[in-house]
């Protein structure tokens, strides 16, 4: 009786994850716990990082079969929204409903900063090619430089779906780390005098302009780049909900319940793609390094173009707002504000940085459309 008892216990122990789990799975669980710590203790973009990191944890539990690729479990069903490209445009719908394009309309030249900051995407594309990634994989890796999670997922899904896990994790992790990555680059490329520039107050934007803007942008961008239409179209639809003022209930749903639900589904299922067997290889390491380069080049591109605008405007533009062109709304704009205030405590750059910041969202969607149309 006692022997049978111990034998059963021994079998249970042998069958447990503690014994049968591989070192790779334990390592991934450790990484997941570290990311959970960053999300909770350090408050690094917890809305995204918490579901993603818990997804990583679930996917690597030995013999639990909870990864996005294990058919029949809940996460696999949720993953279909990623696989079929449903979630990124819906996230964009919510972002559009939350975004005020007023600063961009008030100072349209800030769109140029949103364009310049896309430099990171294309330089990283070259870097990935040099590291022997295929053009499709390089396109998916480069889009990390757009600093836009949904866009990165959308493009990766079309170009290199097998890299979805590492790319999504790199994109969202670096977005969370924007306050750490950007300031040294911004300070390196600007002088104190440039950082101290106080910009003129933006003009008020009429309601009519704000209503016309999303309709116009949808038509113009989609006519030129049909591949960018799913993202731009939904972004602008969400914004039209907000600005029209006639569908307040829908607007509130898009910017609260809908985007929250999709964020849970997206974060969990993207995190659960990071299974040890596919995640832990040298190519993932390459993606992580290239992703960091993409963010850095994007920030540098925006700041350098900001310097150009500083010179051409006779010192009226603070180059720090250029770094906000990498998207990552609104963290990148907050970083511009913070670095600007370190140089001049009475300076309020936030509103001026929101222009390039939302321009970056449009710019990265356009860059995504370019990559898809050329490479696919």
């Amino acid at each position, binding site marked *: 009786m006692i022997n049978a008892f111990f034998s059963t216990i021994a079998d249970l122990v042998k069958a447990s994850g503690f014994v049968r789990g591989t070192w790779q799975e334990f390592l991934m669980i450790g990484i997941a716990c570290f990311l959970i710590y960053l999300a909770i203790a350090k408050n690094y973009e917890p809305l995204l990082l918490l579901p993603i990191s818990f997804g990583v944890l679930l996917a690597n539990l030995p013999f639990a079969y909870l990864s996005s690729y294990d058919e029949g479990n809940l996460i696999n069903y949720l993953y279909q929204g990623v696989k079929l490209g449903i979630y990124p445009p819906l996230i964009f719908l919510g972002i559009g409903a939350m975004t005020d394009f007023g600063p961009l309309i008030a100072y*349209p030249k800030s769109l140029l900063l*949103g364009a310049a900051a896309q430099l990171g995407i294309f330089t990283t594309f*070259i870097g990935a090619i040099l590291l022997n990634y295929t*053009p499709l994989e390089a396109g998916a890796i480069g889009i990390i430089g757009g600093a836009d999670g949904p866009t990165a997922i959308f493009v990766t899904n079309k170009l290199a779906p097998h890299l979805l896990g590492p790319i999504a994790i790199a994109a969202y992790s670096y977005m969370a780390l924007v306050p750490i990555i950007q300031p040294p680059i911004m300070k390196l490329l600007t002088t104190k005098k440039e950082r101290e520039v106080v910009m003129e107050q933006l003009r008020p934007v*009429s309601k009519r*302009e704000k209503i016309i803007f999303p309709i116009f942008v949808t038509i*113009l961008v989609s006519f030129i780049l049909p591949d960018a239409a799913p993202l731009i179209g939904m972004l602008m639809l969400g914004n039209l909900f907000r600005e029209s003022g006639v569908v307040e209930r829908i607007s509130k749903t898009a910017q609260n319940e809908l985007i929250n639900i999709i964020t849970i589904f997206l974060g969990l299922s993207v995190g659960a793609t990071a299974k040890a067997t596919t995640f832990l290889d040298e190519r993932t390491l390459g993606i992580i390094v290239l992703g960091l380069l993409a963010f850095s080049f994007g920030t540098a591109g925006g700041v350098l173009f900001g310097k150009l605008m500083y010179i051409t405007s006779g010192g009226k533009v603070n180059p720090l707002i250029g770094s906000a062109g990498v998207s990552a709304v609104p963290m990148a704009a907050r970083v511009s504000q913070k670095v600007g205030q370190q140089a001049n405590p009475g300076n309020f750059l936030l*509103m001026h940085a929101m222009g390039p910041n939302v321009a970056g969202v449009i710019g990265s969607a356009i860059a995504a459309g370019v990559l898809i149309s050329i*490479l696919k």
Partner: protein
Amino acid sequence: MNNLPLAYNVMFVGMVVVFLVLILLIAAISLLPRIFNKNKSEIKVKDDPDYIISTERSVNNEYSASDTELIAVLTAAIQACYRSDIQTRIRVKSFRRIPETSPIWNTTGRSEYISEKL
């Protein structure tokens, strides 16, 4: 390495297209206020040698307690704006309340900064 010419091509075409589309947007957005905004600026500030700021004031001529505080704030703001010393004579003769037009990020940023300083 064989794909390097393609990579340069993608980079060149990509940056050109992104800039081109956004420049088109700039041109279009710049036209919007000309088409839709016919209202002139509502606030007219006039300065004379004595730095007397004059704007329209609403009907009531008597200052309430809160108005007095507001005038003090306005006076200080004007003084700061003109970077004038304390000897300079500034008198706010009138003011007019206008609807809140600052976008939410602006007001949030200001209130966060002020609360940090308090």
